């Protein structure tokens, strides 16, 4: 059994050390019960790969994405500026995060406020680790030949053009990757972006996550892979609505890799 370590930036600074990367956990990763499992899986992977990383711990705040997209630029800039102060205090250079919303905000929107970092989404980072053979997820082979479909999140895909990295990660599992009718640049939103996560949907004929889960189920995949906490929550709700929680599973890319590698 491995000892898992999750050092904080403050600890590292006290020891006069600097990590290779900062793992930005995000609010969902820190507080949502389901997504905490993803955070833990990713922390385990980082440990197994021998990456010198750190987290901000209680010094992290929301990046401000939901506030900004709901129109509250004041709240956004307050959060962004104080996050930038913290990041710069620790001279952070490289950030990895499992949340496409955090990723997009840190990467594309913080520079406008003076925060410049190299920001990587965990799907890209996992792909690198696999390519460099720092982790060997397929050793356990629990997914060999199993049908998996990947749900593109808007903030990873259309917003930032990352379509291949998550698929490459899934390929490493030796799984049978099936695509939904709407995928990649044509992918359908889970319904949570733009701060929809934090309010009831407007009146319509259907909820967006139901439309999307129906499409995912129609592929016949027994595993739905996601790379975003919001997508995870929305798709899980959809699955419950369809009473399919027992036959179909939803996992984040990091969980799949950790499971495959028996981490």
């Amino acid at each position, binding site marked *: 059994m491995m000892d898992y370590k999750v050092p904080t930036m403050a600890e590292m600074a006290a020891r006069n050390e600097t990590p290779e990367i900062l793992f930005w956990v995000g609010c969902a990763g820190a507080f949502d019960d389901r997504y905490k499992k993803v955070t833990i899986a990713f922390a385990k992977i980082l440990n197994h790969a021998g990456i010198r990383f750190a987290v901000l711990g209680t010094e992290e*705040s929301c990046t401000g994405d939901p*506030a900004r997209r709901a129109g509250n630029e004041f709240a956004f*800039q307050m959060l962004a500026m104080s996050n930038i102060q913290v990041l710069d205090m620790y001279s952070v250079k490289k950030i990895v995060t499992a949340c496409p919303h955090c990723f997009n905000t840190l990467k594309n929107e913080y520079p406008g406020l003076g925060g410049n970092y190299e920001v990587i989404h965990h799907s890209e980072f996992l792909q690198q680790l696999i390519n460099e053979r720092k982790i060997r997820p397929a050793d356990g082979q629990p997914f060999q030949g199993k049908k998996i479909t990947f749900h593109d999140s*808007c903030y990873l895909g259309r917003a930032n053009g990352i379509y291949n990295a998550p698929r490459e990660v899934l390929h490493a599992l030796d799984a049978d990757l099936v695509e939904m009718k709407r995928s990649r640049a044509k992918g*359908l939103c889970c319904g949570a972006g733009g701060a929809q996560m934090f309010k009831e949907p*407007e009146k319509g004929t259907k909820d967006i996550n139901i439309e999307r889960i129906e499409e995912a189920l129609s592929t016949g995949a027994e595993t739905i892979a996601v790379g975003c906490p919001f997508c995870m929550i929305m798709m899980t709700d959809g699955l419950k609505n369809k009473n399919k929680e027992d036959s179909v599973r939803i996992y984040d890319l990091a969980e799949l890799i950790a499971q495959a590698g028996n981490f």
Partner: protein
Amino acid sequence: MTIIQQILFILSLGIAAWLVSRRILIISKTIRLGKDENLTDQPGQRLATMMRIAFGQKKMFDKPWVGLLHFMVYAGFLLINIEVLEIILDGITGRHRLFEPLLGDFYPVLIGFFEILALAVLVACSIFLVRRSTGIVSRLQPTRHRELRNWPQLDGKLILIAEIVLMMAILTMNAADSTLQDLDNPHYPQTGTFLISQFLKPVFAGWNEHGLVIYERIAWWVHILGIFAFALYVTYSKHLHIALAFPNTYFTRLVPKGEMKNMPEITSEVRIMLGIDNPPHSEVQAVPERFGARDVQDLSWKNLMDAYSCTECGRCTAACPANITGKKLSPRKIMMDTRDRLEDIGQNMLANKGTFSDDGKALIGDYILEEEILACTTCNACVQECPVLINPLDIILQLRRYKAMDEAKVPASWNMMFQNIDTNQAPWKFAPGDRFNWAESLPK
């Protein structure tokens, strides 16, 4: 006789030019109501984008068959204009087929080429008309999309019918012309038969010379007056994209789609509030009169040019998750409403000696409903789909800023989220001190 025709022609050319330029002026005036936005960086990249998307029709080929048909109409439109140049010069000088002596043997080849294009346009427009009039394409159905009811759906068909009529005029005009050449009418220089219209000559068999001349003249006038009317009509129609697609793709935003525009007018205030610095009084940016956008004047000129460039194709709406699931939001409607508002303001300015007199209306509320902008998931599907690189999302987000910051009117649950962010630095109600608790469940 020809001198009267020449006078009439020059007169109608003048009137058409005057009417069209008046429209261009009022349109550019309303676009310039928008705020500054600097979109002139990276000219090379911009030119390449315009060549690919507008000139090369790249996105139209996302749907290969439609792309091909549209390309036929587009190429026909661009190239047949060379022939229009001849027609205009003929009209002014009272000559007939002015380019014939200059081009010699090449002339019938050129006209034959134009005739092929004319036939292609005719076929494509007929297919489009059938496609638009039957229920096969959901995004073009007014029963499914309320923004298409009345004028917009008629507009879509009128231009197709106009193109069909114009192309028939060219082809039959050439057929009557060839028949007159066979009769050695002195006004019609011998050019030899034309590629397509030769097959229409049987229509004119048995006509006398006088009748043929009259038909040829009528077709000529219908064609050229039709083009003048078309040019004016386009400025009122979704077909304005034939001109604006070019500048609109050139001036597109060249940043990742996920990046939301910054509000520098807020930054200095936030810096003071956070105690980051205390700039001298003179450097503090003046508080803007409004946060976000309430009306078109608060949007940028590019948002407004977007609105005039919209072809109402509905590709955005067909991809919009909110619209797909029956919500009121339709990104196409956002663009159409913005344009309608601009048109109303333009009319208002015309009626008030060039200045806008407040009509008590606003883009949000009177044209676009709050319910629409609230439903947007900011997924960028609309931005991805648009064949002329329009960004409906940018407008939606600016309207939201107005609602959230200027009016402080957002759903209660969003207010709660704002509060949580204020007190807990997270959108959910959790204590910041618990942020690191997840690590405790890792085996140590």
